[in-house]
């Protein structure tokens, strides 16, 4: 079975992660309930005509994908796989509202065409004229992880050699407010802003010097908190690792009541490891964990953990293996192992 290496990683987020090499040093504090990503200048990446039809999610996705391919020095991937929790929600809202407002009359197709979940993967294929494998996952907070699992399987089974994988969600204009309204009615609801972003990576079967390896990934629909330790142990066992081999853990804390899932990791299983969180900086959304993945890659590459994401005391040990763990409302658990080769 072939290994899976990471040739590039790019993220557009609520922080200066795209346009600055300054690794999360200057942090933007978001005090609002929802916040938009810092959009790159799309004209550097997309023609004005194409951009006019695109909502922010597709724009961010195309830009992040283009830069990820450039950094990996890859013109044409063998496969394009993306994940999105809410899909093209802005265009969906636009078309839905025009149906309601005009009682089904005077409609134009553009926002309908752009509203399907696969719009981003399709746009990337069109721009690159890429006829290869193309897929889109829309599985809430496991959307990006599903795309990663598919990509890893393609590489392992020698069905592809270089794969573009990404996760994207846009804030939209209306639905997000309803979701927040429900959250606000809950005493222990999500306590970080609702955000958006696009994170892309190029996975490859080819090993390069100093590269990062995606060791393994697994997801689970449901786990009770008392079975979490067992699940993590068997995941580490599968990879011939034990708890002490993990140098850093990246967790999806969002301030809601389900953060107790992370507590077991921070207070007993991985006390020795650097403990990292990120959703206070980039917000919560279904593909927020794709940022966690980007963050893990950057930390391994730079051997530096930015102060803004570190929860416990700084360690001077080299960082070789990172475990990324995310869950949403106690469901859709994902575990990812990254290793510096």
């Amino acid at each position, binding site marked *: 079975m072939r290994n899976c290496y990471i040739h590039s990683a790019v993220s557009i987020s609520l922080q200066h992660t795209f346009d600055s090499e300054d690794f999360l040093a200057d942090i933007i504090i978001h005090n609002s309930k929802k916040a938009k990503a810092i959009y790159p200048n799309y004209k550097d990446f997309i023609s004005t005509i194409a951009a006019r039809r695109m909502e922010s999610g597709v724009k961010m996705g195309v830009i992040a994908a283009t830069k990820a391919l450039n950094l990996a020095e890859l013109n044409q991937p063998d496969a*394009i796989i993306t994940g999105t*929790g809410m*899909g093209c929600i802005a265009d*969906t809202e636009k*078309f*839905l*509202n025009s*149906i*309601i407002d005009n*009682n*089904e*009359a005077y*409609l*134009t*197709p553009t926002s*309908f*065409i*752009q509203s*399907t*979940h*696969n*719009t981003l*993967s*399709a*746009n990337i*294929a*069109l721009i*690159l*004229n*890429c*006829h*290869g*494998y*193309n*897929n*889109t*996952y*829309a*599985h*809430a907070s*496991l*959307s990006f992880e*599903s795309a990663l*699992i*598919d990509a890893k*399987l393609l590489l*392992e*089974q020698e069905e592809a050699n270089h794969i573009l994988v990404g996760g994207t969600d846009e804030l939209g204009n209306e*639905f997000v407010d*309803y*979701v927040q*309204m*429900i959250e606000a009615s809950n005493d222990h609801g999500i306590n970080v802003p609702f955000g958006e972003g696009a994170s892309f990576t190029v996975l490859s079967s080819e090993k390069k010097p100093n590269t990062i390896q995606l060791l393994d990934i697994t*997801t*689970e*629909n*449901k*786990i009770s908190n008392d079975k979490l330790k067992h699940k993590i142990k068997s995941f580490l066992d599968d990879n011939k690792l034990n708890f002490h081999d993990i140098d850093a853990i990246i967790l999806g804390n969002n301030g809601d009541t389900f953060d107790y899932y992370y507590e077991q990791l921070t207070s007993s299983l991985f006390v020795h490891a650097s403990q990292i969180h990120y959703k206070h900086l980039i917000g919560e959304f*279904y593909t927020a964990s794709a940022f966690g993945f980007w963050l893990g890659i950057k930390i391994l590459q730079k051997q530096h953990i930015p102060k803004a994401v570190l929860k416990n005391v700084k360690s001077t040990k080299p960082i070789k293996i990172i475990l990324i763990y995310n869950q949403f409302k106690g*469901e859709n658990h994902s575990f990812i192992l990254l290793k510096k080769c």
Partner: protein
Amino acid sequence: MTSPRVAITGMGIISAIGNTVEENKVSLFACKSGVKTIKNISTIHAGQIKVGEVKCTNETLISQLQLSSDNNFTRTALLGLIAAKEAVKNARILDNSLYKTGLISSTTVGGMDKTEQHLKQFKTSPESQKYISSHHASDSTKKMADYLGITDFTTTISTACSSSTNAIMLGARLIKSGKLDRVIVGGTDVLSKFTINGFKTLMILSDEICKPFDEHRKGLNLGEGAAYLVLEAEHIAKKEKHSILAFVSGYGNANDAFHQTASSENGQGAYLAMQKALDVAQLIPEQIDYINAHGTATANNDLSESIAIKRIFGEKVPNFSSTKAFTGHTLAASGAIEAVYSVLALQEQTVFPNLNFKSKIKETELIPTTEIKKTKIKHVLSNSFGFGGNCSTIIFSKE
């Protein structure tokens, strides 16, 4: 290590022509279309379209599933669960926790049927608010996983009209790699004002029952439905003494990379998907006995698909038909619905007809099978193509 073969051990379906596999089979043999005037949705386009509606109200489905009265099931989830439950029962699976079991579902509209009814009441009506969390695409998948007791791998694919074909493909790949022993794969989509108006703006809806592959085809009929297959590694199926209905022997996924909603003139994406599926199945085109075509009856799809079929099969095009005139185009569910029909074709050694065909398309001159035809069928190739150039093909084999 050689990878296991992917056995199909169960099927479930609900569509415009029946609420079970048996009912669908009866309608197929009776050449009875389920496409009619729209009943369940009030739309200004009612007089200008025909649709394939499932003949059950939500209330009937809710009581059939014995759900509590305060449930927030969308119709998408209801249809999905009915079909998935039948598939699991058909495979005679009693406990989904004994093997590494997954669920891969697919949908395009997700919970849109409820969203479009309640959107403007979300802010004020507590009764509407329960449908805020059921909008996103994975809501129906999660409800099915919970009901069927699947805690392991679950995911949702959304690649427009090729969605459930990609779900079958991923399921087959996960079994071949040994990552799963058993996986329930398929898709569910319901009629909504959103899709009716969307396709209406694209001017590809027919005002009569569609005529796939006919020179004078006028467009497609939208439909709704759900279908699921139980896939198992062959050795697990045998160990459990499950009947093997057929095998998934080949699959291919390619992108047309031509246009967001239109298919290319040479059918490149379709051609590549079919070629890849033949390669995976290690078959030559001559070994395919029946093609269940995508055949939506739009001017663009049927021509492009015909060209792609001719590029693969040359002058020796096997029996082929589109079953869209029976069910309407059920979007994400269509690949899984047609997978059930493909397996039925293998079991019954029967090509199901392409209804309403009269005159061949001038450019390609292909003639589909227009009547029930008993013939020897070992391998069936089934196509599904979608917006965004997503083209996928599955090959089902008897042995």
